[in-house]
């Protein structure tokens, strides 16, 4: 599904990340594990095309990211990648439903309110469509963020530290939600986390330390 080859990402003279080769198949579940500062965020940013590698090539869904520029890259990202950030970042001025519709709109798709509702129903939020994010619990807000990430049927679903601030029960539920949603759209799931509790759930792991694969 994606291949990273001969990747180096430097900030000035400092090497932030080096991955000789990382390949993932369609529908696989990957965990990028490692302490903070190990290069997890850099790896995610490279996968989504937000960051360019200093050297090496990245091919996602058959698309060489180096070949995409500007708004074409943005559009590709909107349609191909679903991203659940650690802090969720729901748009506070929009309702739950509008947050999901926004993802469709910004990806350049026509907004499909039935699909948006169905996606929110699949994460158990059908009763909260008109709520503002500030009126949601942490768990509910995370569900909205997941719905927003999967509404466009992404080939690649990425979550950054999704369980960091959750108790065991909620961490397990979140993981279950992510895997079921990834399965639903046959997406490859990549979770970056330093949370030891969720290691067992992943068949594939990329262990990072000081910017290198261990």
């Amino acid at each position, binding site marked *: 599904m994606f291949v990273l080859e001969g990747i180096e990402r430097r900030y000035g003279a400092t090497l932030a990340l080096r991955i000789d080769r990382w390949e993932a198949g369609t529908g696989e579940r990957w965990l990028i594990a490692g302490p903070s500062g190990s290069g997890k965020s850099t790896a995610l940013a490279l996968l989504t095309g937000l960051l360019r590698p200093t050297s090496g090539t990245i091919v996602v869904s058959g698309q060489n990211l180096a070949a995409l520029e500007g708004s074409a890259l943005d559009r590709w*990202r909107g349609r191909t990648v679903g991203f659940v950030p650690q802090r969720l970042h729901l*748009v506070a001025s929009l309702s739950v439903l509008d947050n999901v519709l926004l993802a469709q709109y*910004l*990806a350049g798709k026509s*907004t499909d309110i039935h699909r948006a509702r169905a996606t929110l129903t699949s994460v158990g939020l059908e009763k909260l469509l008109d709520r503002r994010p500030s009126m949601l619990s942490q768990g509910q807000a995370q569900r909205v963020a997941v719905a927003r990430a999967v509404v466009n049927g992404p080939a690649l679903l990425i979550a950054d530290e999704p369980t960091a601030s959750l108790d065991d029960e909620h961490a397990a539920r979140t993981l279950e939600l992510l895997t079921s949603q990834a399965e639903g759209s046959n997406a490859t799931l990549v979770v970056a986390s330093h949370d030891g509790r969720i290691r067992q759930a992943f068949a594939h792991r990329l262990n990072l330390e000081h910017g290198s694969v261990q």
Partner: protein
Amino acid sequence: MNLFRLSASYVRQSGLATALNLLLLMLGVGTIVLLLILSRELESRLMRDAQGVDLVVGAKGSPLQLVLAGVFHVDTPTGNIPLAEALRLRNDPRVAQLIPISLGDSFGGFRIVGTEPELIGHYGAALAAGRLWNAPFDAVVGADVAAKSGLDVGGIFAGVHGLRGGGGGHAEPYRVVGVLRPTGRVVDRLILTGLASVWEAHAHHEKENHDAAGARTDDDEREVTLALIKYRSPLATVGLPREINAQTNLQAASPAFEAARLFSVFGLGVDILRAFALLLVVAAALGIVVALYRAMDERQYDIAIMRMLGASRARVCGVLLLESVLLASAGALLGLLLGHFAVSQIGVMSPNAAPLASAAWRLLPQEAWIIVLAIASGILAALIPAWRAYRIDVAAVLAKG
């Protein structure tokens, strides 16, 4: 979902700051519109009332005062002039029309004007009811006078000495014999009568009070206050006023010139007020800059996530620009409404400004410019925040969490 809805949601979200900036813009634009309408109305009223009067002749004194008294009927006249001398000008080949006017009395704040029937035609007025005067103390009242005082044909009223009321009363009452149709000109606010009425009123007055005001009954020594002159050709402008001023005891004043002079004095005040109003608009624009810029600290996460969701740099800038333009246009539109509304209220509340009530909602061509300016200032206000949005490092912001 679209860009407009997203921007509108931000405008709604920022509650108090939005409301304050909107208010500032509204006040600034409202003041500008108010001034524009008022000066347009004042100018057109001055022009309308002065139309057809090329020259006013009266006693020596301030030419502006003479014009104010004789054409706009707002000031006391400079004095009286011999009727004979005024009538001599009638024979001048350069004069097409000369209408003598005698002032001195009023009723209920409306001036009683002794004159000849030509004055009615001069203002393009016509009788709505009744007839013209044919005897002393017959009066024809203007439309406003009839409406406000309730006088109608057959009504009787007593004039008082002086132009603003409060003077002594005259013994002989006036009889209303005619009412004029509304013209939108100064004649609506006048009570017209024959010259003889004024002479007789003041002859009585003189006998009773030994007061020197007014005219004698003796034909040769009869006086009027002033005379309105219409030229046969514009060429008369060159010589006639100078001749009158130099060679007679009369003074000639040009309404067009005096009105322009008056308006230039008034215009200075308008310009200063307009500058203040512009200052309000600039303050509002700055308010929008500050509000947007401060919101950027929080908004950077929204912008980062929007970029993550597929929005291009141009599109996230567009959200900010649109938000600012929405705010500015809303402020401008509300300001336009406020300005027009204020003018209409002035018209409703002040009887002297009654014509404003109907003129208040006529649109000015300058209003299109106000909208254009508002949109432009909206764009300007959003430039710095939009630049920040354009350059945002999405990966860093999202990772920062």
